[in-house]
């Protein structure tokens, strides 16, 4: 019962937060978005002040009063300094690269300060180690935050907590921002033998592939996605345009990867297996096509093709 109530209230809070600080790939922290509370150190200070005040009253000591009031006034001043240290800071989400499930997603972020310096800004997701940076006035600070991934699909890290206790540590000012990060998480690749090539067949294939790579056939016009290693730099430097070298690939027909061929008890394992195959074939530069129920990618090779295949595997069965 209580947990349900708590769940409900946290849902309410989420909704309220969503309205107050909507997801955006860039935002500026202002009074609508910043919360501030005394930190534990601040509560400790207040306790200390109460004890000192009792001493001042009992000893009727004007100067002890003065110390208490100085620190009390400093408490008030510190509140504004802590708030000011966060206010006006701009947060931008910069690019992020797809990762395989189980790896840490790298989320790029820039902190921009237009006029003021912002010191000791701590960023963290709940339950994860914090990251602390300073942002100098009129400067950009770029950094990458890491977020662990577990499942394939789109990763949307929750709200990032951006907080500061600077300068005195008596207050904590924070904001919970959703920088609208989306990271594509590929299935965790499994290293299994390719379908239809058992035992020596696979070894033979490897052998033939190596020969094929060395067997230069000719040039063709560069197409996006061609490996840089295969560009004909010499021709380019002579001003003859950008061409890719074509190598013979006589031994292998393009290989179709089908979901039903993939071993594994669960869909996730099957997809992981297929991701492993994609990587393997791409490494061999052997054309491969992908066939999933409801999706089909024609055989090809190259980085762009690999990304398309992995993306299809990552998003298979995920509706969004």
């Amino acid at each position, binding site marked *: 019962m209580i947990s349900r109530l708590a769940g409900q209230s946290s849902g309410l809070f989420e909704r309220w937060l969503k309205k107050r600080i909507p997801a955006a790939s860039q935002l500026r922290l202002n009074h609508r978005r910043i919360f501030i509370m005394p930190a534990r*150190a601040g509560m400790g200070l207040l306790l200390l002040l109460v004890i000192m005040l009792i001493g001042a009253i009992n000893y009727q000591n004007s100067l002890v009063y003065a110390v208490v009031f100085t620190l009390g*006034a*400093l408490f008030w001043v510190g509140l504004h300094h802590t708030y000011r240290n966060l206010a006006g800071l701009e947060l931008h989400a910069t690019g992020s690269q797809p990762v395989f499930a189980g790896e840490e997603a790298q989320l790029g972020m820039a902190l921009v300060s237009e006029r003021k310096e912002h010191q000791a800004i701590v960023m963290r997701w709940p339950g994860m180690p914090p990251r602390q940076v300073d942002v100098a006035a009129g400067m950009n600070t770029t950094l990458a935050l890491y977020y662990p991934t577990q499942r394939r699909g789109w990763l949307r890290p929750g709200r990032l907590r951006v907080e500061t206790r600077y300068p005195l540590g008596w207050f904590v000012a924070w904001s919970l921002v959703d920088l609208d990060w989306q990271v594509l998480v590929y299935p965790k690749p499994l290293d299994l033998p390719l379908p239809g090539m058992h035992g020596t067949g696979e070894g033979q294939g490897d052998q033939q592939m190596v020969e094929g790579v060395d067997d230069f056939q000719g040039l063709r016009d560069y197409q996006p996605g061609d490996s840089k290693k295969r560009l004909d730099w010499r021709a380019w430097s002579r001003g003859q345009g950008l061409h890719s070298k074509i190598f013979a690939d006589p031994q292998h027909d393009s290989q179709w990867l089908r979901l039903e061929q993939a071993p594994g008890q669960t869909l996730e394992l099957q997809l992981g297996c297929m991701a492993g195959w994609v990587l393997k074939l791409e490494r061999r530069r052997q054309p491969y096509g992908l066939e999933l129920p409801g999706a089909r990618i024609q055989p090809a090779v190259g980085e762009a093709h690999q990304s398309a295949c992995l993306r299809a595997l990552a998003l298979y069965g995920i509706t969004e």
Partner: protein
Amino acid sequence: MMAAHALIPRNSLVWLLTAQIVALIPHLPRLPLWVAAVWLGCAVWRVQIQRMHWNYPGLLLQVVVLAAVTLGTYLAQGTLIGLDAAVMMLLLLFMLKLLEMRKPRDALVVIYLGLFIVATAFLFNQSIALAIFQCFSLLILIAALVGLQQTPGRNDPVRAMRTAGVMLAQAVPLMLVLFVMFPRVGPLWAVNAPSSQARTGLAESMTPADVADLARSGELAFRAAFDGSPPPQHLLYWRAMTLPRFDGRSWSQSPLSAAGAPSVWQAQGEPVDYQIVTGASHQPWVFSLRGATTEDDRLLLNRDFILQARRPLTQNIAYHATSYPDSLLEPDGLAPLQQRINLQLPEGFDPRSRAFAAELRREYQRDADLIQALLSHFNQQPFHYTLRPPTLGRHSTDEFLFDSHRGFCAHYAGAMTFVLRAAGIPARVVAGYQGGEINLRGNHVLVHQFDAHAWVEAWLPGQGWVSFDPTFQVAPERIEEGLQFALRGEGSFLEDSPLSAVRYRNIGWVNNARLFWDDVNYQWQLRVLGYQSDRQMDFFQRWLGTADWQRIGLTSLGVLLLCMLPIAWWILRPAYRAANRQQRAWQKLNRRLARLQLQVQTGEGPRAWQQRLSTALPRQRSEIAAFFDAYVLLTYATAPDEASNQHVPALEQHLAVLLRALPRRRPPRPTRLAGLPDDDRER
């Protein structure tokens, strides 16, 4: 807080050690030397821990050390209870915390303890000098707090200091409002006073026979401000206590003589109004002229016509009193108990003095005549006023009166009281201060510890208690001119304090400076240290015209808000500086060039501007080129990201070099001066 597992960075440790030193300094003079040694030991150990050379002390060692410092405190203070011992213990724990400080949170504890210790120093000393020093201590402690919050690896002590200073400055107005407005109430419960603050000067008893060399301090005992001009010196007998009990050697107070409502007395003559400000002596006695009355309910008038505080003075006190110096005190007769107390003499002491008294008694029937005869005896016999009397044996009064003839006020007052009592006249020694220095600036009298004095009161039928001063017979200049004058031949005036400004009061400017400083101190005591409930009520009465707490409370809240809001606005005001550092550098250069009457024109590009500058300032050509190259590169050929990280600092560096190279003023144009004659140029 930072992650709990983080260690304390080296930078923070430096802050903490500095903060500890400044917090400890004001306490160290009161404490035995080994306390400083303990701190040094802890600091060295801590530094060695940081350098991974030594380890944290184990539990056993901790227990042993704790026991040792507890024992040390006990030996130094004689007790473990009470303020002095508590503060000393706190200081030692504050030091030992260094060895137990592992996490940033422990560092916070050290700083909070430091803040507490800064405040406790004021329980022992409330001078202006300490107040100024403690402002500095607070600055360091707050800067240490800021230092702990700085991003590790980017610590900057100077910036931490500046941030702390700015914040403290912003806190001052609010602090002042709180100080004035916060309601002052009496102590919540009784507290014992720090003993080390008990002043020297007056003691509860007086044993002249044992004193070979009376050291007197130049410290101020109290100040008295008169309505109108102060009475002449020889009438300023400040009464603090009576010493009726004599045990053959010492004169001391008697509760039987003092306690109780004042006896019958008749106010006579012109009243004198005055206000006295005195420090926290932790003694109940206060000072008044003869025949004093007061409406101050913290004071009471004793049976022996002495004003006394109801409680020992744990703070500065300012009180008003009115005295009728010519009053008759107990003129109608002494109660039998009082008669006995004031005639009491121990058996078996001073036979010669007793014989002398008997002789006087035979000669003079009237008490007044006898007293006159005794005073002339002091006057005519070769008595000598000195602060270096010989020590005296068992029959001290005899030896003084008939052999040594040398002594100070206590000898004379004691001997005279003895003889009067032996002759059957009730008499007692009165202790207090005599005279004082008139500070023309503040129209008040400064009474120093060296003005301490003792004289005699004898009871005469029909007249009551009458004061006599035998010292006056021996050294009238002591009464009329002060101690310094009386001792001019002996050189013993404040000889233990060669630096005391009082010693040099015959040098004009030294004396002026001293009196000015004294006035500042007086105002400090009266307005700052003495700002307690009564003065606060006066203040509210004067400014709000009411003593109604509700109105005072509302007004205070209003003033508080009025003070808090502008501070908040000031802190949160938008930054006014140029948006980025590049523009700031540009503006800074142009501001500086404007002083040299060189101004960039609208629409003039950086290169054109550079050209013009190079012509105007040929010597700085290369520095100008360096700056403009960097500027142009930054403006036209750099991606924003790169700019912030490398090129802006470079630009700023070029700017600094250029600014240093620029002339302070525009170099004079030789063409204009060439035609003028020499003398014209001089004008």
